[in-house]
């Protein structure tokens, strides 16, 4: 479902859009903002209208049909698409445009972490999974590392399940545990923003429930942007929701608004289950 920019751009302009600025109705400052974002895979433009603002300490959900560009958008935010896609436009992180070649992507990604659809723990022990990135950054003090392991695992709500087996291989954990370990691993480097791409899609309902609790609890410390296919999930955990369709963010508003009285017809259809 790729957009051909030349032919459809004009025709699609009739489409209504409704995008809010979360800092207006919410006292939190904007932490991340995209401006004139365009993403191209080769000659194909996968995102051509994705200007959104994300407020601090909020959970924002990205929903939309398959192929609408949610992952593409999300992965552009911390430049995981470098080398895969060409990303034009600005991505302002606390006012600094991070979509510039001079930006040190490694420091930026430390601040804007990401968790993926399929749990991807390293084939190392649970302990080493958490401490690996810190060690690479020169943290060697055993006590500091121990502390980080404990707090990260606690924040990711998996501490109680693994505290007695920190030296066990992470691959021996269940899928749900692995995913929470990946969240713990991501927050161990003290990021500012967490991006999650369908983190629950490979999990069973019980694990999904736990993961959602974890995310809700993390909100007070982190800003979270999550892609999900699960409408109930978006409704349960997010404060704001963006609806993507064919490479554009069509509607962005408070989650309650999106799910009760969307302003854009296509959003309404999608939320009501009429397509997608």
């Amino acid at each position: 479902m790729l957009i051909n920019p030349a032919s459809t751009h004009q025709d699609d302009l009739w489409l209504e859009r409704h995008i809010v600025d979360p800092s207006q109705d919410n006292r939190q400052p904007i932490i991340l903002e995209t401006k004139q974002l365009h993403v191209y895979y080769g000659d194909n433009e996968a995102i051509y209208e994705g200007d959104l603002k994300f407020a601090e300490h909020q959970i924002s959900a990205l929903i939309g049909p398959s192929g609408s560009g949610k992952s593409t958008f999300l992965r552009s935010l911390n430049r995981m698409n470098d080398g895969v896609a060409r990303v034009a436009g600005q991505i302002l992180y606390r006012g600094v445009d991070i979509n510039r070649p001079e930006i040190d992507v490694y420091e930026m990604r430390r601040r804007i972490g990401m968790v993926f659809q399929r749990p991807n723990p390293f084939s190392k022990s649970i302990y080493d999974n958490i401490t690996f990135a810190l060690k690479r950054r020169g943290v060697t003090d055993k006590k500091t590392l121990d502390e980080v392991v404990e707090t990260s695992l606690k924040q990711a709500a998996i501490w109680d399940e693994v505290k007695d087996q920190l030296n066990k291989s992470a691959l021996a954990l269940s899928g749900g545990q692995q995913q929470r370990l990946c969240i713990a691993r991501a927050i161990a480097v003290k990021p500012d923003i967490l991006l999650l791409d369908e983190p629950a899609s490979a999990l069973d309902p019980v694990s999904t429930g736990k993961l959602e609790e974890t995310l809700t609890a993390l909100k007070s410390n982190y800003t979270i942007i999550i892609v999900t296919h699960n409408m109930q999930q978006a409704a349960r955990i997010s404060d704001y929701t963006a609806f993507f369709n064919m490479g554009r963010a069509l509607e962005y508003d408070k989650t309650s608004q999106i799910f009760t009285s969307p302003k854009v017809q296509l959003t309404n259809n999608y939320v009501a289950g009429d397509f997608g």
Partner: protein
Amino acid sequence: MNPKLSNRIAITTLYVIASLIVLILAALLGYIIISGLPALSWHFLTSPARAFTSGGGIGIQLFNSFYLLILTMLISFPIALGAGIFLNEYAKQNWVTSLVRTSIEILSSLPSVVVGLFGFLIFVVRFNFGFSILSGAFALTFFNLPLLTRSIEEALAAVPDEQREGGLALGLSKWETVTHIIVPAALPTILTGVILSAGRIFGEAAALIFTAGQSAPALDFGDWNPFNISSPLNPMRPAETLAVHIWKINSEGIMPDAKAISSGASAVLVISVLAFNLLARFIGRRLFKRFTAG
């Protein structure tokens, strides 16, 4: 002809051919082991060769083979690892990369005599290393690099991309991710490749006859200072290996027991290569288990 009948005939023929191949291997192995076993003894494995009289052993050649193998691996593994990493992780799909791949393919298909002659020209003559372990190790490195690089590249490619993304998303560089996560995850496969190529190196002779030389001067196994001329570790001494020894005594050997010695040496060579093969399988399976669970 009736299709049913021709089907029957064809399939029977295929059974015969397949059995023949098994038979060939069985005969080869049987012949090597049976004719070689009587010669094998502790004395044979440890004592030096004799040029004109019978009763010589293969001790020095055996040591040379292992020393050369280790030295070759020490030189070629880092290069192959670096090249494999670049090819799998960094190389873009463009004409430079395809040129590189073509040249690696060319190197892997060059006759080993040609590689040996090149080693002779460069190391023995130009660099004045003479017939030496070092010249031999460099020649074997050229011989080894293409296959080892390819097997490392394949091992890396088999590690899922999610592992790479996991590292990058933590703010690690690609290099750190590859060296600390991808390479360890690929280690069982890499090690299997290394051991299999070790078997190939161990049996190689053509690349060595003009580089490591065809003589095995006496060694003083009490002297491990690599700078001393009779030290086993001295990399500048000529070093006939086991494989070269077999060739040498069969081409121009004049000792009375040349045949018994070659039989014994062949048995040792084949048993070593078999051992490398089994070890590769064993280690591959063992490490794989350790890395995936437990």
